[in-house]
């Protein structure tokens, strides 16, 4: 037995994203944001997208390109504080925004990736974040039902991938990537390096390749990946 090869070109990877798709995009700030896959999705042009991403990056960077190009109908996120452009689109009604507590967004995505229906949590009970949510009593205490999130596509940034799609991340670039890499029907990875099978030791794999469908090696790292001077 040998493990299958999942490497492909950027065009093959991004092909097949459709208008109306739900797209998970890794990253917390710059680290872990798949800047190149995002640019490819802009070039691809799919519209009416629902994005699931921790934050909206900053104006002129990351998913802001998708907001600028008008491809986004809806954004499920935790915080837009660094992107005034995104807040403007939200306030004008040009995009619909759903805010989640950050760890609850993480758990909803993970639940999708784990084939669960939902998690029950007490986070936000007694605040406006609980408004409209289904409540379940368990042992006499109320819990909010936080439904699992799945996506049609996940765009993932990894430090290293092997041919099978085993992934390793570095630093705080991990964040939502390992969770989203479990939770989409099709998982597309951009990796700073693609290694032969065995190039990532079995004990050091962060995301097992079984979750991954396509691996694209980054030839260059654009300026967007670099340290941001504010």
């Amino acid at each position, binding site marked *: 037995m040998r493990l*299958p090869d999942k490497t492909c070109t950027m065009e093959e990877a991004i092909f097949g994203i459709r208008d109306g798709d739900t797209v998970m995009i890794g990253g917390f700030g710059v680290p872990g944001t798949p800047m190149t896959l995002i640019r490819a999705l802009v070039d691809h042009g799919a519209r009416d997208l629902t994005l699931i991403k921790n934050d909206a990056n900053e104006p002129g960077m990351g998913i802001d390109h998708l907001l600028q190009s008008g491809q986004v109908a809806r954004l499920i996120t935790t915080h837009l504080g660094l992107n005034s452009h995104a807040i403007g689109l939200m306030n004008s009604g040009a995009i619909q925004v759903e805010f989640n507590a950050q760890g609850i967004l993480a758990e909803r995505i993970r639940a999708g990736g784990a084939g669960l229906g939902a998690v029950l949590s007490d986070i936000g009970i007694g605040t406006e974040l609980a408004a409209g949510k289904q409540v379940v009593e368990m042992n006499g205490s109320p819990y909010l039902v936080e439904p699992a999130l799945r996506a049609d596509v996940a765009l993932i940034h990894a430090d290293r991938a092997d041919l099978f799609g085993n992934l390793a991340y570095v630093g705080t670039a991990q964040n939502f990537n390992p969770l989203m890499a479990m939770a989409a029907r099709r998982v597309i990875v951009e990796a700073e390096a693609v290694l032969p099978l065995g190039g*990532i030791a079995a004990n050091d794999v962060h995301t097992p390749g079984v979750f991954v469908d396509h691996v694209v090696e980054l030839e260059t790292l654009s300026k967007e990946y670099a340290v941001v001077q504010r």
Partner: protein
Amino acid sequence: MVARAAREIAPGMVVNLGIGLPTQVVNHLASDFPVCLHTENGLTGIGPAKGYDTADRNLIDAGGAYVSTVPGSAFFDSATSFAIVRSGRLDLTMLGAFEVSATGDLANWKIPGKFSPGAGGGIELAQKARRVVVLTSHMDRAGNPKLKQACALPLTARGCVERIFTDMAVIDVTPRGFALIETAEGISTAEVVRATGAPLILPDAAVPTF
């Protein structure tokens, strides 16, 4: 029958082979066949079995057998392992059976009063793998059919089984019940019909053998 079942594995699949007969399927895969074998105790990329003399004390499959890795193997915890199963990343699982019903119900974990060690990971494999096939003897030790109109034993999962490989035949579970696909070399269709505890849909043409 094990060799025949091995042909069920298509290139590129992620496969979990249950304890018992299914484990032997691996012996019928070519060394360069592109497949990812999963074991629920936390490994993708199972390599050949190991003897006691060369075994790694930290490297077993879910049945407790000593195994090896292949280039590109990955280790993970039990939550991630079943996330693979429940989220639909398992293309195929091959399981043993006490009983299979004509609607694809599977009973393979409990015989009340006799055998109840717990279901382990079997429930999730049966319920969530994209394709569930069963490898089993056609009849139990007492000579009773294991393929029945309805299961009498507690179920592992409902309506999950798509195909059954036995020592006598390959049988599909269809919307109209069991359908005979192939017979083992030297076994007649009539013998399979007699050994099966529910009606068997027979093909119009001759039945292939394996």
